[in-house]
């Protein structure tokens, strides 16, 4: 068994390898100078990386060995895009707003179909191992779109879960959507979640999902790290319940809000034991580890109870956060858990989060972490 860990940063990707998950080698940067924002491995065994640059735009690249790369020529794009202005955070984009391809936020592989979630929020698919991409108009042109508004990170589709014909996606700051017919139609699924900004016309959007994960053995069980708390759905997203006992909480919402909830971004689940991992931060206003203590929180019972994990994590004051794409688990027994911080440190646990070791590197801001089993 060996694990290849991809750390996508603001200035390139780094490839970490280990045969025992204790000693790691670090290679890179791959795509030096480029943001590496997402990766996946296709059913044909090819790696797919997403790059972006505020100067040179966004693109996808494929490789079989993480050494020789070829840029995808027919990547996701919005053919009617005009200009390059970003929508204003917290303000609906309005009618006539044409999306543009600012960044590829997430990639997902499900059997032979690939999915890409992008900013400006939209979903694209590929059925030829990533060589060409098509938009999903049922979502991208949804009638509610003029009322979508961006979060602090932009108007982005950042989370994708697929189980058969059922697909869940998360858009900031719009909410969770589900398709039951392979992407032909979509319905918002946010009942039970606190609004961030309630839309006057469309009451089922205006939610700020930050991260999604699903129970691999019970795909109707979905975990949701939201702007306004941590939630679990047992019915595929039809309804949600907050599960925050034992989590640090901070104020969220409008100034003066008395709502207290657990604010954070990433959520990952161990496919074997169903253990959940999140990194709570102090409130939506501050977005830093609570009291300067960088901690991963684990739940072994579907979010009913949470335990702070810190053995091996920094003992000095630490005020770097973990972005939504910057935590991953592997499929080993016990599971490995990996995350990277906004100050470029990366940590690995080979025992389901009980203990942690720093990876031997200090990198640019870490945007994306993924773990792949080799051999």
């Amino acid at each position, binding site marked *: 068994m060996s694990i290849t860990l991809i750390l996508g940063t603001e200035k390139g990707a780094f490839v970490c390898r280990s045969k025992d998950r204790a000693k790691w080698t670090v290679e890179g940067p791959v*795509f*030096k*100078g*480029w943001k590496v924002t997402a990766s996946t491995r296709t059913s044909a065994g090819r790696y797919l990386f997403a*790059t972006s*640059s*505020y*100067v*040179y*735009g*966004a*693109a996808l*690249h494929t490789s079989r060995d993480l050494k020789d*790369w*070829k*840029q*995808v*020529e027919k*990547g996701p*794009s*919005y*053919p*009617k*895009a*005009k*200009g*390059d202005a970003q929508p204003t955070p917290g303000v609906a984009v309005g009618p006539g707003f044409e999306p*543009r*391809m600012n960044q590829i936020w997430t990639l997902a592989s499900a059997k032979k179909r690939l999915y890409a979630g992008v900013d400006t929020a939209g979903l694209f698919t590929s059925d030829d191992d990533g060589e060409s991409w098509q938009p999903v108009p049922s979502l991208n042109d949804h009638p509610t779109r003029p009322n979508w508004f961006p979060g602090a990170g932009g108007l982005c589709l950042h989370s994708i879960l697929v189980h058969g014909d059922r697909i869940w996606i998360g858009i900031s700051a719009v909410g969770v959507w589900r398709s039951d017919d392979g992407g032909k139609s979509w319905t918002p699924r946010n009942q039970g979640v606190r609004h961030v900004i309630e839309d006057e016309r469309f009451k089922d959007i205006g939610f700020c999902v930050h991260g999604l994960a699903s129970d691999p053995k019970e795909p109707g069980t979905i975990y949701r790290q939201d702007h306004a708390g941590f939630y679990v759905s047992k019915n595929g997203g039809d309804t949600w319940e907050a599960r925050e006992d034992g989590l640090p909480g901070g104020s969220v919402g409008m100034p003066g809000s008395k709502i207290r909830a657990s604010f954070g971004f990433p959520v990952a689940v161990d496919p074997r034991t169903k253990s959940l991992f999140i990194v709570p931060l102090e409130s939506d206003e501050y977005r830093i580890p609570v009291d300067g203590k960088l901690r991963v929180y684990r739940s072994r019972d579907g979010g009913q109870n949470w335990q702070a994990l810190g053995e091996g994590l920094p003992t000095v004051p630490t005020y770097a956060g973990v972005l939504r794409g910057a935590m991953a688990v592997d499929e080993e027994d016990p599971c490995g858990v990996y995350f990277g911080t906004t100050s470029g440190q990366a940590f690995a646990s080979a025992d389901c989060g009980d203990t942690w070791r720093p990876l031997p590197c200090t990198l640019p801001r870490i945007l994306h972490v993924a773990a792949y089993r080799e051999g």
Partner: protein
Amino acid sequence: MAKVTIELPSMLGNVLGGLRRVEARGDTWRDALEDAFHRLPALRVHVFDEAGALRRHVLCFVNDVNTRFGEGVPERLADGDRITIMQAVSGG
């Protein structure tokens, strides 16, 4: 049509297999870029946005003249002209 050289910045080379120079033909700098895109399709998305305009932070020089300024940009390219793609460096 003039035979020109298009020079690419190292960051673009990092996603284009190390390529730093493309030979192209065209009467104007836009024609030459279109010819380069035909030879190297992956280049287009990095130079032009989806609406077909030069990306906001990309500069294109013909020899020593910035095409954004309009004035002084040769109407017709000549053999041996050099087109340089580079990042607009703003701020410090």
